[in-house]
């Protein structure tokens, strides 16, 4: 596969190579682009993990276990999609975990206390996410507070608000028929009984596809990348960078609202104490997927693969009866290795 490298160099020296068969050249150009290479590496790692665990533990490939991996990926995956937007724009959002919980609690208030209809509850959760993202984005863009600090503050404030609003007690959705179906039923399973893929995973993929379209085909996406690559140049091009930053954070917030609905539906309750720590898993998934923490580069496919690597790893180690403490250690090492691979790749390019 190394012979693809000369073609990469040929492209870089801006000499087109028309002699090659077009299709082959296209495949190589696509797959061997630096961003694509990290994705390929991540994808190969995922396959390697799957193969390893299926040999190591016969129960790994059981349908129940696969469904459990998918369920576990859904929430972290959606949060990672939200983080991808913000990280590609050159920012960071530490509040995604507690925001997810806050949105779940808001849905709980709307549905179980105010007895509003289910679609309204869904809208409240997503609306709460957008609003919170708007606040974070405004802190970063208008008040120029560094994203790390602004969203650290938001993380704590939202955690506190969730506890205050819920009275520190879980809110159960027993009276809301259909709420648990959001996450736990399987529309695909109804159609194809052999594939009992839970709705949560379906939603994850729909969110990821919509986000990928937004990131690659819309004005928002183009500005998101541009903000991450060179914010000052964009400002000097006459773009209202403050406005678009707020939009990026608000978009991320809205997606966190969806994650809040997924987790509340899966647990059939809003657990106000939950949430902290999810932001780090989400950031880890984004980074493993090849998105640069310095912004301007990244893909949602990479993020989804990253999220799956995280959950396969956790699940596989648990099935192999590796102690919980060691699971955490292994996850930490994997994240460091993934980022180091990214640094090596960057160095090789320059």
């Amino acid at each position: 596969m190394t012979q693809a490298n000369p073609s990469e160099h040929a492209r870089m020296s801006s000499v087109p190579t028309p002699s090659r068969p077009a299709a082959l050249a296209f495949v190589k150009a696509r797959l061997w682009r630096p961003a694509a290479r990290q994705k390929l590496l991540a994808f190969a790692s995922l396959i390697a993990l799957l193969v390893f665990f299926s040999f190591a533990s016969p129960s790994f490939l059981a349908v129940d276990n696969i469904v459990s991996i998918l369920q576990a990926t859904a929430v972290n995956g959606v949060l990672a999609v939200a983080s991808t937007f913000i990280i590609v724009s050159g920012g960071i959002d530490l509040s995604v975990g507690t925001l997810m919980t806050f949105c779940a609690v808001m849905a709980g208030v709307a549905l179980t206390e105010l007895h509003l209809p289910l679609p309204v509850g869904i809208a409240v959760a997503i609306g709460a996410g957008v609003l919170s993202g708007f606040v974070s984005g405004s802190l970063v863009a208008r008040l120029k507070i560094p994203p790390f600090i602004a969203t650290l503050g938001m993380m704590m404030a939202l955690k506190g608000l969730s506890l205050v609003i819920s009275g520190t007690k879980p809110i159960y959705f027993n009276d809301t028929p259909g709420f648990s179906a959001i996450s736990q039923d399987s529309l695909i399973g109804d159609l194809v009984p052999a594939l009992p893929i839970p709705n949560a995973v379906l939603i994850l993929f729909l969110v990821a596809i919509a986000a990928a379209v937004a990131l690659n085909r819309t004005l928002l996406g183009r500005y998101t990348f541009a903000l991450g690559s060179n914010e000052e140049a964009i400002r000097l091009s006459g773009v209202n960078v403050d406005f678009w930053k707020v939009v990026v954070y608000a978009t991320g917030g809205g997606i966190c609202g969806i994650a809040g609905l997924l987790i509340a539906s899966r647990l059939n309750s809003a657990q106000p104490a939950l949430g902290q720590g999810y932001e780090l898993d989400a950031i880890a998934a984004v980074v493993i997927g090849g998105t640069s923490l310095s912004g301007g580069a990244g893909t949602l496919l990479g993020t989804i693969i990253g999220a799956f690597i995280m959950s396969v790893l956790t699940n596989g180690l648990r099935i192999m009866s590796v102690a919980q403490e060691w699971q955490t250690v292994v996850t930490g090492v994997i994240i460091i290795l993934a980022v180091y691979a990214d640094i090596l790749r960057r160095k090789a390019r320059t």
Partner: protein
Amino acid sequence: MSAAMPPLVSMRGLSKSFAGVRALDAASFELRAGEVHALMGENGAGKSTLMKVLAGIHARDAGAIEVAGQAVGIDSPRAALALGISIVHQELNLMSHLSAAQNIFIGREPRRGLGLFLDEARLEAQAARIFERMNLRLDPRARVGDLTVARQQMVEIAKALSFDARVLIMDEPTAALSNQEVEDLFRVIRQLREEGVGVVFISHKMDELQRIADRVTVMRDGRTIATLPMAGTAMETIIRMMVGREIEAATRAVPDTSARPVALEVSHLCRGTAVMDVSFHVRQGEILGFAGLMGAGRTEVARAVFGADPVDAGEIRVHGRPARIRAPRDAVAHGIGYLSEDRKQYGLATAMDVQTNIAMTALPRFLRLGAFLDGAALAEAAGRHVRQLGIRTPSLAQPVKLLSGGNQQKVVIAKWLLRDCDVLFFDEPTRGIDVGAKAEIHALIDALAAEGKAIVMISSELPEILRLSHRVLVMCEGRVTGELAAHEATQERIMQLATRRRASAAPPTTPASADPALQ
């Protein structure tokens, strides 16, 4: 000083290239003990590079350096310091949260208690001793961030002296100083000269150099032109040696734009000390050259007009109507474009492709269904400009960072043309661009003016100013010091205006004497 004594520093045949660009070409330099030696030349003449070689910051490609008669190989700043060679950079390198004494001895802190603890008392005493030597009243415990720029500079000099400096290099030390502060600096320099320190003084300010320097070395295009005693050398002689090139025959036909409508008018623009009461106008189809030395405030004027930096006062009129510009997007909405001197930092998202960069000023025009980018329309518009400007790129999807400097600059131009801007600020349009591409960019600027665009071109390269400008405005220290019509503009006259400090009472030689000779 006896004639047999070798000079303190002797540099011969020094050459240095950066990425194929020759910065030094067999340059030579000699410094005696106990002299103040001025180093002069246009921007890019090689002054700073030569001194950075001496200070061990750049490694030389060829040439010999002797210090006190001994051949030395200076391969690092550490090696230079060991030889007693210290440099005070134009930009101060101090840690503002630390005290003056801590800054001076950073990395060399005296210790006590088995070397575990810092000996602050000894640190401060040593700093105080250096200040005393400089005849300077300054508290070693003062936080550097609280000091004025001039006093910070003194701390830098003290730091340089703390290495037992025999050679002190100062790169434009007076750029940010007031007249009184310059006096204080000169007093310290004279003190050091008394003690036998050799001082190299890089500056553009003729009047100051005439007062402080014993000898002057003039550089041009990386070569040493001459070394002369300062006393008895006329300013004009030095300027002529700095400029050097034969004046290009003024055969160029300058279009008469005096009847064209004024596209942009700026009145009494002020921004701190960087821009002081600057007024100018530019007409449709006119190229207004902004000449001056680096740091004269030209970029600051452009950025202020463009809304990139806040202004204190001033009025801007676009096509005769007052324009309220508070952010770059307001300027863009008024049809004003700004092409920064630093393309990579301010002009391009270099990791992104050609097409996106070209369209960056006008992306909202390419929307379908309110949010989706119309790829085909984008490609069509970007492709049109790529062809029109002759941008050499394998495809529209090529990341801009893989293009040459000239082609990157064309991408920046394309970006403003796509937005239909009719007032364009070019800030150093050909910096870092090779000779062939330079001519192309020049032709392009000419063509844009012929189409009726109003162009303000900032350039530190006098030949570029003379070749393109229909009218030249000269700035010095934040002020406009003169305006010249194309036929009046010569390198000498521009240099005179560009070095005219407001406070210096002595007027520069009147241009009248030089003028007729050039007609």
